[in-house]
């Protein structure tokens, strides 16, 4: 989710020809791009349907078969291979026991009545108290309200399971992420090694490593936690390193001049000064963990994800919305508490507080005693241990929403179906055919020429290797199907980004209304809003594209809005006073000046859409996403799924580099939208 936003890349080097007069350079680039386009169209017209490298869904290449063999090898050697005996299995049990500790404390013990060890009342009390202690009274109350609401929804156990797994994953992320982040912050060399690994981890779709992880660590909470850590740790490492690196030079020099050693400097200067950034990293990591734990339901992670999966399979919109509500609430609680904690970690925050430290301690101590009483009650009284069953309006939510969605489906189906068919037949199918039916060698040539035009030899080389890898993986045709959907979705994301971004950038009021909605959209795990769309549009590529758009649009809108808002007011005033109409101001001043932001928005939009490709396969997307899902659930397709996962990564790197290059050179027109269509 939004964690992918936080990537501090070195700005792409402007190529040498940027020094030439802009007009001439532009024309050369345009000529090359135009030639590539013409070549493509001609090739499609005369050669379409030949050399498409199509691999039928049931067929495998030798590479896929050898990956399958790896699967079989692990299965048969698990019991007596020393690597498993002494490394993987003990590691698994260690993670499992930590996860078990938290789940049995907050969600359900593994023996007895399977109630939480500290009861629901104790859980609500303890968690609220912790929120109060690390944040403030307001987030403490929010926590109490949210967890009580889970109980009223009839989902207390599920929500507590999800929370416990998030907690476990964040703990392990801290254990791994902070030391690595500190190392990367101190040493440039470590940072150079780690950054590409982190890039890889963030482009790798979440689904892809579920299958290999389940193979090695078996299904269950342990694998779920490990998968979640892989997903959640990169933002923490990046932000920790960023925080440590960005300490002002003179502060460091001042400390050095006092003769501190490296370790002292770390403890007394760097860590405390980077504290706020690190806590922000914890926030990002927590949100990422929540979204992954939901998806990990597919490998038997207990909790809200299971409810959503069940709803997805039975097309039960009511149940999905009820569970989705819990997930969003949990996301809000986790976000607010960690944000409050990062505010508290701000240097100088202590002075601004309204109550003195002493009275705060007294308050904390008193409330702790109350919490302990609540815990004790939960251990002796059944009503405080298990959430009362008669206080449950979950079924009402489920049936209410279910009825509403059934009404929508029957009354809107004519509209939704014809809308879907029109877009699929009118835009998606022709575009997909343009990509998937053109001979592969021609398309490779076209992409390479475009890459050369946009970023010179270096980019062409990267592009060539990515394309070669995709071909080697045997999944060219599927990759083109995925690319078609991804580009269509990104184009829509950019249109939305420009429309809403400009509106938000121009008006504070619109910004204030939109921003919370965008935040909500971003904190909601992708899984949740699939079900209603599945109900409306059926399992088709269209539905998957809609899901990708919803996932990616908030980022693009925010980046665009920030870009527009950052234009200096004097420029704007000059434009307005010279008598330009608002439309002229937007098209002639604001959009061109926010070009860099637009390009960044397109870049991030693409990466976000691509991240949704696999999840979209659960609701009908074909191509690589389907291969990954099928490889996950059918052991005979394991190798193909793994290969498809890698192909998505190469596709991601390719798109990322090309859009970055398109953004790097100053050009008059908005190139981002154009380059994504090429």
């Amino acid at each position, binding site marked *: 989710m939004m964690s992918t936003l936080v990537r501090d890349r070195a700005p792409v080097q402007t190529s040498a020809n940027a020094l030439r007069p802009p007009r001439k350079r532009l024309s050369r680039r345009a000529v090359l791009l135009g030639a590539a386009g013409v070549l493509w169209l001609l090739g499609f017209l005369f050669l379409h349907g030949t050399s498409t490298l199509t691999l039928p869904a*049931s067929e495998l290449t030798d590479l896929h078969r050898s990956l399958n063999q790896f699967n079989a090898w692990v299965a048969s050697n698990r019991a007596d291979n020393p690597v498993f005996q002494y490394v993987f299995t003990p590691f698994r049990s260690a993670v499992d026991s930590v996860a078990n500790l938290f789940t049995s404390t907050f969600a359900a013990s593994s023996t007895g009545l399977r109630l939480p060890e500290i009861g629901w009342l104790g859980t609500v009390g303890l968690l609220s108290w*912790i929120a109060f202690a690390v944040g403030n009274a307001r987030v403490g109350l929010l926590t109490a309200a949210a967890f009580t609401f889970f109980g009223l929804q009839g989902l207390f156990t599920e929500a507590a399971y999800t929370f416990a797994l998030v907690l476990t994953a964040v703990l392990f992320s801290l254990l791994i992420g902070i030391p690595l982040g500190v190392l990367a912050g101190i040493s440039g060399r470590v940072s150079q090694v780690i950054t590409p690994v982190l890039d890889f981890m963030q482009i790798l779709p979440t689904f892809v490593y579920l299958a290999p992880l389940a193979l090695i660590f078996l299904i269950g909470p342990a694998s779920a936690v490990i998968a979640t850590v892989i997903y959640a740790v990169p933002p923490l490492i990046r932000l920790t390193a960023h925080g440590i690196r960005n300490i002002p030079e003179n502060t460091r020099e001042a400390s050095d001049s006092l003769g501190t050693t490296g370790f002292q400097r770390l403890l007394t200067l760097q860590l405390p000064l980077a504290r706020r950034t690190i806590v922000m990293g914890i926030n990002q990591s927590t949100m990422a963990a929540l979204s992954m734990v939901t998806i990990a339901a597919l490998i*038997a992670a207990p909790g809200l994800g299971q409810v959503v999966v069940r709803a997805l*399979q*039975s097309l039960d919109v009511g149940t999905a919305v009820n569970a989705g509500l819990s997930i969003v609430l949990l996301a809000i609680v986790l976000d607010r508490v960690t944000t409050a904690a990062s505010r508290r970690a701000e240097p100088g925050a202590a002075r601004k507080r309204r109550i003195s430290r002493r009275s705060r301690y007294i308050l904390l101590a008193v409330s702790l005693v109350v919490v302990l009483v609540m815990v004790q009650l939960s251990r002796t009284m059944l009503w405080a241990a298990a959430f009362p069953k008669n206080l449950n309006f979950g079924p009402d939510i489920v049936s209410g929403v279910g009825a509403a969605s059934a009404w929508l489906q029957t009354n809107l189906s004519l509209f939704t179906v014809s809308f879907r068919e029109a877009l699929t037949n009118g835009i998606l199918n022709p575009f997909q055919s343009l990509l998937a039916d053109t001979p592969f060698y021609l398309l490779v040539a076209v992409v390479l020429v475009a890459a050369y035009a946009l970023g010179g030899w270096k980019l062409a080389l990267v592009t060539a290797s990515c394309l070669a890898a995709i071909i080697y993986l045997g999944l060219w045709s599927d990759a083109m199907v995925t690319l078609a959907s991804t580009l269509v979705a990104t184009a829509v994301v950019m249109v939305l980004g420009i429309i809403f971004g400009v509106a938000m950038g121009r008006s504070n009021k619109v910004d204030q209304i939109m921003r919370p909605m965008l935040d909500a959209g971003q904190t909601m795990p992708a899984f949740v809003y699939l079900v209603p769309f599945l109900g409306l549009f059926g399992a*088709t590529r269209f539905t998957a594209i809609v899901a990708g758009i919803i996932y990616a649009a908030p980022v693009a809108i925010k980046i665009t809005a920030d870009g527009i808002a950052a234009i200096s007011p004097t420029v704007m005033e000059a434009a307005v006073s010279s008598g330009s109409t608002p439309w002229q101001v937007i098209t002639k001043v604001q959009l061109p000046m926010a070009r860099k932001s637009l390009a960044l928005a397109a870049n991030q939009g693409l990466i976000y859409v691509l991240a949704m490709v696999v999840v979209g396969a659960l609701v009908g997307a074909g191509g690589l996403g389907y291969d990954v899902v099928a490889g996950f659930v059918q052991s*005979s397709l394991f190798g193909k799924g793994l290969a498809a996962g890698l192909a998505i990564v190469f596709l991601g790197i390719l798109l990322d580099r090309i859009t970055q290059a398109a953004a790097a050179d100053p050009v008059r027109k908005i190139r981002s939208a154009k380059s994504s269509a090429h």
Partner: protein
Amino acid sequence: MSRTRQLLKRTIPVLAGTVTAALLLAGCGGASVNQAAAAGSSDTPCGTVNVALNAWVGYTANAAVYSYVAQNKLGCTVVQKDLSEQISWQGFGSGEVDVILENWGHADLTKQYITDQKVAVDAGPTGNEGHIGWYVPPWMVQKYPDILDSKNLNKYASLFATSESGGKGQVLDGDPAFVTNDEALVKNLGLDYKVVFSGSEAALIQSFRTAEKNKTPLLGYFYEPQWFLSEVPLKKVSLPAYTPGCDADAEKVACDYPDYKLNKVMAKKFADSGSPAAKLLKAFSWTNADQDSVATDIQGGMKPDAAAKKWVDAHPDVVAAWLK
């Protein structure tokens, strides 16, 4: 230095509080209402049974009745986990799954987990007989009588084309996790069709229902036992006859699906534990009609638990035989 001290000052009370809470927990020991009530309520030690829940209503019906009996007659704690078919098998090794209640063949998994790894054992047939195949809504058979022969399917391919099938006819499949040879069948029988996945049993049923109601063409993957067939009696298309071993190579299959004797599978550990729930699992057996009646109730909006209770109350002697 003052910063670190401040940091310590802030974190120490939090830590202290958590530790106190933990100590308190430890102090209370096992005397909680959670554990005490459990010890009192059941006289036979049964413990917890982890039941994998695969995503079709027939399976849900089996799981509901088994869980209901285990919970209410044996005093077990049943934990149901939504998992896809093949993933469930992985749970035998990790202890995540004790029971699979309706297994469709899966000779490869049987070999891997039962014969080779010895983490699972066969718990006998469920009494249900399963069929997988390609089905069309009944109105199509009246209009196109020869459609039920797979040799004639190419003639009708254009009829089945949709926006998802790329100009070919569409074969609508269910969940990618279900047992399916359809991709290979299309290719090896030389059919001008494309397999499109609807994603779930619910989506398949909805599609067939609309197809029959609006008289629109649809060719899709479906299976018996299946409650929906009593609502809309879909007609099965005959594929080249099944011969033993014709489906050995997944990429080269060109024959119909076999008749499945559906069975139950349980974890080796669970089988050896002597739990009464393991004994119940081995004895569990019923007919396709039984399963369909429970599935129909569930589909009609009844909670699985309530539907199971209704069936159990109506069939006391069957249940009594299981518990003997």
